[in-house]
Structure formats: structure tokens, C-alpha cells
């Protein structure tokens, strides 16, 4: 529960919207209930009045005022329904943005370092669906619960004003129908709901494996057995959903049964009250219609109860991730970056966790500004870790990294990052235009600069081919960009960023020889006055560097090859 309360607190800036939504919802419901009760009262009164033998009495019955009130309530009901819809949705959208912004801000310090330790691809997409689940928090959970609580209190007080026993009886019916029955069935359906989630996840994993390895499976004649496995999971999923559907159906059938039978008790009580003349006939009509219409308030509670568990879990998941600590601690008073970029690594010891073996073991290295070095080593031996340390995604457990003689820990990490440009095997293209993707590296870049970058990266022909040119949308839902083209876009970004230190992580991996040559030539061009640190497993094509180091498995130390 405290996880939900945490998020409700986040909504504070929009409390006026949220409260207006609740007030309008309440007005809609109460308007409807009042309309129906008053109608019940009017019809019963009219019937009684018409029985009264003396005709004049029925003539003297004041029907004008209630008739006008009924018309007024019908209009209030209609208008507030519209207002309620608009305002609650407006509030939902505002809240939705708020949660996303909050989460994004939390992720900024975590993204480098902490998240790379987790399986972040999956984690983030799970987080996104958890945040989507929170969208229901106001509209389906908070709003109906508050409206029901206030609305029911008002309705029950009105009933109690006429007859307290009927009020208590009604309270009990409503509690059973809105809380007890959904609660019991939620409990019963809990295991099914969990099974459905895990079967879905299971199906998803297996289907992804099947699709990714479809060629292996076909060629090794294993596809049909995999297909059977998947269909089997799908059948189990449907079985479980069926069981759940039956429970839900049973729950609504039972709710109807219980509320109808208890309405009989209400009838008995009303009859008794009529007998003892503690209420009049028109009042009885009013009370009964009020109770029938009151069910409108409790209908949304049952789905709200169903959502509660799911939303709570989502809130818990999100908070868990948001409360992770960054891998590095920012200094209280950050030093500003020096103008000279000499890098020194002083007997570095590094590993990702206490239990694992050292990845870097007493490593020392000096990289003066403007020098160009390559680090060769087999895959999985800490080359990437070394780059991550240089960008201060992590701090080494022992030893120090110094920039112009100042310890890394004294700079603000985001500021420090601005000294580096990275070109790696993987290019992150955002779902935006190519132009926006380039401007990411230098928002204030002029058209002339962009043009220069495209030319250098060998992208000019590619862009000219596209009917929308630089405005072409890439990334998800956009034009598919080949690996080579993506790398060239990354290269253009590196040029635009114009950082003093260039980090190259297998920059030509997966490229054909033509593109590889072009990328290397461009790199040589743009790195003339810059420090270059390249890690690779291929010793070929390194004529342009000053020093080549070998990061070997045995001693985890750097060996100077050149």
C-alpha cells in the first residue's frame, strides 16, 4: 500500500484536476441516484394521492415542484457526466506525464553503470509496461474508491434519516456485493492470474527464441517439435484464462444473487416499517428506488479491486528500480574540467561484484593528450570495462584515474562525460528524424556543420536518395537503416560533438571492407588533434596509432607491443 501512496503523493501538482474529477464523478452519480429516487417517490405519492377518495386532495397534490426537480436532475446528470469524462481524462494524462518524467529523472544517474549490470533491455521494457499499468491508478482505482466512499456515506445517511435499520441493512448488502464477493473471488483467482502472467512470459521467451533461431530449427528438423511446445503453452494459457473467466462469471452471478436476495430483506424491513407507520408509502418508494440506483456507485469497485493487486505490484517494481543507488558518488563540490586532457590510470583494480574475479588487476597506463593508442585483447577480457572506467560508469575498487592530475571522483560525472566521444559496434538511433539524431550531438549545429558532418561520414549519397532527406524518420516505425549506415550516422555524431578524447570500441566490427576503410579514413581525419583510445580484438589496420597495448588474460596487465 505504501508504494501506491508514494505515487499518489507524486500527483500533488495536479491535485486540483484530480479533486475536480472526483467532485464531478460524485455529482454524476448522486444526480442519477437522486433522479431515480425522486421519480420513485413521485410515482408512489401520485398513486397514493389518487387513491384518496376526495378528488380535490389529488388536485391539491403539488406535482409541479418535483417534476421540475426531476427535469433539473436529468440535466445535471447529463452535464456532469460530460464534465467528469473530460476532467478525469485530462487529470489522467497529466498524471501519466508526471510519472514518466519522475522515472526518467531517476534513471539518468542509473543509466550509466548500474543499469549496465542488469539486463537493462528487458528491465526497461518491463518498467515501461509497469508505468502503463499505473495509468489506471487514478481513473480506475482512486477515483471510483473515493467516489464510492463519499457517495455511499451520503446515500446511507439519507436512508438513515428515514429509517436507520434499512440503512444498516443496505450498508451490509453493499459491503457484501462490492467488497466481500470481489475480495473472495480475487483471492480465488489470484493463482490463476499469476499463472497467466508466467505463462505469457514463458510463451514470449520461447516464441522469441523460436523466431530468432528459426533457421537453425528448420534446418535441423526441430521446428515442428518447437511449434508443438509453443501450442502446448498456448493451450495451457487458454485453460487458465478459461478458469479465470469462469470465476469472474461466477462472481457476477453471485453478486446478482446476493444483492437480489438481500433486496428481499430490505422489502421485508420496509414492509415492517410501513406496518409500524415509521415511514410513509411515498418514502418507501423513495428508499427502494434509492437503494436500487445506489448500486451504480459500487459497480466500479469490483474491477477496482481486481486492479488493485496488479497496480500495487507495478508500483512496487517501479520503486524498486528507482531506488537503486548509482555506481558512483558525485562530489559535493565538483571541480571544473581542466584544459589539458592527460589521462593517468594508477594501479587500477576492478571487478563488477565482490564475488567475481578481478577483471583489471593492477593496471597502470598514461595517455598524454593527443596520443593515439590501441588496446588489443580477446573478447571478454575487460576491454569494455576499461572504457567504462574511463567514462566513469564505475569507480575502480583500488587505484585512481586522473585527468590532468585530478582524481576523477572530483568531477561531476555528466560534465566529465562531455570530454569523450564514443564510437562502438552498436549505434543507438532514436525514433526521430536523421537530423534530430545528428543534432543530439550538437543541438546548436548550423546547416553548414551538418552538411560537413554528412560529407565526412560518407552519408551524403545515402541522404540524397531518401525522398525526405534529413527529415527521414529512423528508429522504430521509421526507415530501416543498415548497420553500415547507422555506423556512419554515429561517426557524424562523433564529428559534431568534437570532444577532445575519442573512444573507439571495435569501431569497424560487422562492417564490409569498403565501409570499414572509409570509417577508418574518416576517423584518421577527424582525430588529428585528439586523444584516441581504441579497443579491438583485431591487430590488423593499426598503422596510424602511436602505441599498441595487449590486454592479456594471464597477468591482466598491459604489454607494450609498439
Amino acid at each position: 500500500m505504501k508504494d501506491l501512496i508514494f505515487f499518489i503523493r507524486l500527483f500533488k501538482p495536479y491535485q486540483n484536476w484530480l479533486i475536480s474529477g472526483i467532485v464531478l464523478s460524485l455529482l454524476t452519480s448522486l444526480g442519477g441516484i437522486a433522479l431515480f429516487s425522486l421519480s420513485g417517490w413521485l410515482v408512489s405519492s401520485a398513486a397514493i394521492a389518487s387513491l384518496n377518495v376526495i378528488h380535490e386532495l389529488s388536485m391539491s397534490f403539488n406535482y409541479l415542484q418535483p417534476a421540475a426537480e426531476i427535469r433539473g436532475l436529468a440535466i445535471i446528470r447529463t452535464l456532469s457526466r460530460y464534465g467528469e469524462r473530460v476532467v478525469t481524462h485530462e487529470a489522467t494524462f497529466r498524471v501519466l506525464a508526471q510519472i514518466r518524467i519522475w522515472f526518467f529523472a531517476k534513471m539518468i544517474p542509473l543509466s550509466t553503470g548500474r543499469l549496465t549490470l542488469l539486463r537493462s533491455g528487458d528491465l526497461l521494457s518491463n518498467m515501461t509496461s509497469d508505468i502503463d499499468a499505473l495509468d489506471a491508478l487514478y481513473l480506475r482505482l482512486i477515483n471510483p474508491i473515493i467516489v464510492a466512499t463519499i457517495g455511499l456515506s451520503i446515500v446511507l445517511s439519507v436512508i438513515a434519516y428515514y429509517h436507520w435499520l434499512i440503512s444498516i441493512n443496505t450498508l451490509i448488502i453493499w459491503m457484501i456485493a462490492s467488497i466481500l464477493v470481489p475480495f473472495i473471488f480475487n483471492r480465488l483467482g489470484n493463482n490463476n492470474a499469476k499463472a497467466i502472467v508466467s505463462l505469457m512470459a514463458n510463451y514470449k521467451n520461447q516464441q522469441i527464441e523460436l523466431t530468432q533461431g528459426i533457421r537453425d530449427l528448420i534446418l535441423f528438423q526441430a521446428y515442428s517439435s518447437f511449434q508443438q511446445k509453443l501450442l502446448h503453452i498456448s493451450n495451457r494459457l487458454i485453460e487458465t484464462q478459461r478458469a479465470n473467466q469462469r470465476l469472474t462469471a461466477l462472481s457476477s452471478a453471485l453478486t446478482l444473487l446476493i444483492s437480489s436476495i438481500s433486496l428481499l430483506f430490505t422489502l421485508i424491513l420496509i414492509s415492517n416499517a410501513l406496518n409500524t407507520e415509521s415511514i410513509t408509502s411515498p418514502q418507501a418508494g423513495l428508499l427502494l428506488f434509492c437503494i436500487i440506483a445506489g448500486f451504480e456507485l459500487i459497480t466500479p469497485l469490483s474491477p477496482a479491486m481486481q486492479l488493485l493487486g496488479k497496480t500495487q505490484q507495478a508500483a512496487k517494481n517501479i520503486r524498486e528500480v528507482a531506488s537503486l543507488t548509482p555506481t558512483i558518488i558525485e562530489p559535493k563540490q565538483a571541480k571544473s574540467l581542466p584544459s589539458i586532457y592527460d589521462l593517468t590510470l594508477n594501479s587500477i583494480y576492478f571487478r563488477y561484484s565482490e564475488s567475481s574475479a578481478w577483471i583489471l588487476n593492477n593496471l597502470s597506463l598514461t595517455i598524454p593528450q593527443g596520443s593515439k593508442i590501441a588496446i588489443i585483447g580477446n573478447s571478454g577480457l575487460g576491454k569494455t570495462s576499461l572504457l567504462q572506467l574511463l567514462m566513469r560508469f564505475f569507480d575502480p575498487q583500488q587505484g585512481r584515474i586522473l585527468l590532468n592530475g585530478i582524481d576523477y571522483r572530483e568531477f561531476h560525472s555528466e560534465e566529465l562525460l562531455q570530454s569523450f566521444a564514443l564510437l562502438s559496434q552498436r549505434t543507438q538511433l532514436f525514433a526521430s528524424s536523421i537530423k534530430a539524431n545528428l543534432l543530439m550531438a550538437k543541438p546548436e549545429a548550423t546547416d553548414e556543420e551538418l552538411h560537413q558532418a554528412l560529407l565526412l561520414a560518407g552519408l551524403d549519397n545515402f541522404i540524397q536518395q531518401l525522398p525526405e532527406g534529413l527529415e527521414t524518420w529512423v528508429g522504430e516505425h521509421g526507415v530501416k537503416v543498415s548497420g553500415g549506415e547507422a555506423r556512419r550516422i554515429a561517426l557524424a555524431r562523433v564529428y559534431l560533438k568534437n570532444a577532445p578524447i575519442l573512444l573507439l570500441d571495435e569501431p569497424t566490427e560487422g562492417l564490409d571492407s569498403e565501409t570499414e576503410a572509409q570509417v577508418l579514413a574518416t576517423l584518421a581525419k577527424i582525430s588529428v588533434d585528439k586523444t584516441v583510445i581504441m579497443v579491438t580484438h583485431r591487430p590488423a589496420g593499426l598503422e596510424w596509432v602511436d602505441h599498441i597495448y595487449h590486454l592479456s588474460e594471464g597477468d591482466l596487465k598491459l604489454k607494450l607491443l609498439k
Partner: protein
Amino acid sequence: MLSSVSANQAAFEQRQLTEKQAKQWLKAREKTVKAWIYLAAIAGVINGLLLMLQLAVFAFILQQLLIERQHLFAHLDALNFDYSQIFSGLFQVYPLLNPAQNYLIPAMGLWLIAVILRSIMIYLSQTLGFEAAAIIKTDLREQLLSRLPKIESAYFKQHSAGELTATILEQVEALEPYFSRYCPQQKLISLLPLLMIIAVWSINWLVAVILMIAMPLLIIFMALIGISAAATSRQQFLTLTRMSGYFLDRLQGLTTLKLFGQAQRELLTITQVANDFRLSTMNVLRIAFLSSTVLEFFSAIAIALIAVYVSLTLLGLIHIGPENPLNLQQSLFLLLLAPEFFNPLRQLAVFYHDRASALGAANLLIQLSQAPILTWSTTPLIHETNYCLELNQVSKSYHQRFILREVELQIKAGEKVVLIGDSGAGKSTLLRLFLGLETADQGQVFINGQSVNSTIASEQIAWIGQQATIFYGSISDNISLFNSHYSSDELLTAAKAAGVTEFSDGLTKGLNTLIGERGYGLSGGQVQRIALARAFLKNAPIILLDEPTAHLDQETKNQLLNTIEQLFKDKTVIIASHDPEVIARIPRKMTLQNAQLI
């Protein structure tokens, strides 16, 4: 300007077309489960009829309590006091059991029967619809999964595994509420309101007329507003998906954003984007909500009109409508029925977004079921030949660019060939032709004199790619690909021969170690060794390798090449590679350049 208008027009027409297609597709599915949908609808209609009975009985009881009671009190006075003393406690709380009023008991019994039957009908209507959806979901998954291996491999390059999985899992799921709730409700709505009007007509034709006027008016208004409302509920759905898509995209690229010092700025952009989304969506929603307002308006006005008309008639103040006057039971019945009359329509409006998401899902499912598939001629060519693998005047092009142009190739059984060429030159395409994963535009591809198709290829060839797919399971599962007919001895031999045991022996669980997504991480060389073991275990006469050493370092590469030489010395082998060391080891060299084999 003009061109952009026509482009918009074209886009609009295209959307209309896909929407129409999606509707037809859904209709066609619906036909296959018609029986279940109608059964669910019938249960719903019976529930509605029972509801009317319940309301009538309720009104009757009220009539007895409120009106007839005045005559009953006289009888009460004449009651035998002894008799009443015995049950006095009971009478005070439950005076309904008072013998003088006990004709209410049959009414209560009837009420109870109606309620119990209604509960059963509600249960049925909610479970029968599910069966319709269950059949459709199972059928669709079966169809899609059977179709998947036949789809051209180019399709898999354009659509990620995640995307296809989402279609087969989530989009199929998205159809469920449409078939289980929306369709039955749609059938119900064409009958139940009519039955209700008939019931009302038998009591008072004027009230029936009020409802009859309200209903078509309501439908017209709903349709007018609904045209935009349909687009809207879709719009809202799209907005949410786009919003979270955008968010996920930026979240996943956060490291890159930070590297460019753009993380804080992106925070502002996300705020801006969320606001834009909100404004544009709210503009559409404001119109869409009119439809629920209209529904509310008619429902509220009907209640108000009926209440006022009925009470004025009771009072004898107006004399419009039928001659015979209303009594309280009839009046209350009419009043109670008024909101129920609009309820089915209200339900349908609630289920409306099921339809929108089903249409969206249908679009994606149609796309997948129309993905181009490989077709083989039904009469395979057979010719006498000494060659194991042959290409006869084979041409293949992508996007009007020739990858292979009239290529000739003959390879004898047992021969080893290296296929040289830059990446993108068409080496993989050539191998895929033999593997039956692609078809030639022109010419013939033969394996042992038989024209190739996917069945022959998968029997005759073992294939090793740049990086084998590792499935979640043990190492031995990954060697046998979950085929249970291999003995553990056979598995062990293959694992030994391919050098898998060299690293698996160091693991505590050996070949039973779990690998794949959630298991022990393997290095590139280890993955390729498992691929070799797979191929060895399959023991096919032909081995095709597509750049098997691409992701490996020097040392691992040499070891792997030695193993390859040893394992497949008796087989027919083609290796595609541009690695000089691989090329140096193989005697027969062929280079693919400008779509020609030299």
C-alpha cells in the same frame, strides 16, 4: 501544396482500405464461431427477459405493500391474538409472513426463481463468449506458427523477433474481448430492446413510443458522434502506445543521451511531448465523450419523462395515451425498466474499445498472414548427375539489383570449397538457395540431382552460421535441439568431437549446464563449438558454413578451423568467408564478385 493534399488523400484512402480489410477479416473469423457467439447472446436475451419478470414481480410486491396495505390493516385488527402471540417475535420483524399478507409469498418465490435463473444466464453469457475467443486464439496461433517457417527470410530482417512475438502473443490476445464480449453484445442489442418495447407496449403504448423515439434518435446521435468516437478510442489507444514507445526509446538510449550531455534536455522534451500528446488527444476526446453524454441524456430524460407522465396520469391530471388507467404496479414497472432499456447499449459503448483494439490487432495479423512465403514447384525436377551440389543458370536479385546473375556451380561429393567475397556480395544468398530458405528468380538449384526444396535441404544439409542460436536449456539440449531420439552416448561423442567437452567439463553440471537467455553465458567460440556438435550429430552428407569464424579471436579461430577440418573430412563442404586464414586452408576457391562466380 497540391501534391501534399493528394498524398493525404491517398493516405486516407489507404487507411479506409486497411480498415475495411480488417473488418472483413474479423467478420470471417466470427463466422467460424457463430454458434458460441449466438449462444452467449441468447443467454443475454433470456437474462433480459427474466429481468423484466423480476421487475414486474418487484412492482407487484410494491403495489401490494404500498397500496393494498391500506385495505389489509382492517384484516389485521381482526386477527386471532393467540395465533399472533405464538409467532409474535417473527411477525414483528417479518410481518410479511403474516397470514393476512401471505399471498406475497408466491410472488417472492417467483422473484427468487427469476433471480436464480438470471444468475445462471449471466454466468452462461460470460463463459460462452469466451469459448468463441478460445477457439479463434488457438486456431490463429496454429495457423501463424505453421506459416512462419515458410515465410521468406527477408521478412525476418525487416521485422524483429520481438515484433513477431508481440503479434502472435499479444495481438491474438487482443482479439479475445472482441469475440467474447463485443460480438455477443452486438447480437443482443438487435433483439432485446425490441422485446422490451413489446412488453412496454402491452402496458402503455405511449411510453413505448417514447422509448421507440429515443432509441433511433439515440442510435443516430451515437452514430453521428460515433464516427469520430470510433477513431477516437483508437486514437487514445494509439496515443498511449506511442507515448510509451517514445518513452521506452529514450529510456533505452539514455546512455547515449548522457554521452551527448542531452539527458536533462530530454527531460524537458519528454514533458513537451507528453503535453502535445495530451492536447491532441483531449481535442479528439472532447468530441468522443459527446456520445456517452448523449446516451446519458436519453437515459436520464426517459426516466424523467416517464416519471412525470406516469404520475400525472395516476393523478388523472392528463389523459394522453391509452384509455385504461395505469395502476402503481404498471407505473413502477415502466419506471424501473427505463434505465434497463438503455443498459445494453451502454454496455456496447463500454465494449467499443474492444472493437477498436481488435481492428488494430487484425491489421497486424493480416500483415503477418500475408507475408510472402516461399513456393516450390509441385513437380520437382530430377536429373542424372555426378554432382552433389549444382547451380544451373541461377539468378537472384533484390530491389532490382542482381546478387547472382546466371551463376553456374558444380560441386562433387566430398569436395571442399571456400566461397570468397565481401559481405553483401551474395555469399549467404547462395548458401540460402541450397538450404531452401530462398528461391531463385531464374535457373535451378540441385542437391544430388534433385531440385531443391526445404524438405530435401533439411534432410541433406547441416548448416553452421556466424553465430548459432542458443536456446534456453542444457548444453546437450542445444546440441540435440531437444530431439529426444539421440542417445546420451551419441550426444557425448558429438560433444567430444566438436570440443564442447573441453569447456563443459570445467562446469559443475557438465553437459547439463543450463545455457541461453537466462543461463550460463558462453563465449563466441563456445557457441560455435555447440553448432559444430549439432552438425556432427545430424550426420548429414553436406555441410554449409557461413562465415563461421566471423566473431572469433585469432586463437579460438584456429582451434575451431582445426576441428572443422577433422569433423567433416568425409563430407561435402562449402565455407563462405572473407577471412584469409580460412581461405588459405581450403583447396578449391571461388570468388563471388559483381553477381558472378569466378
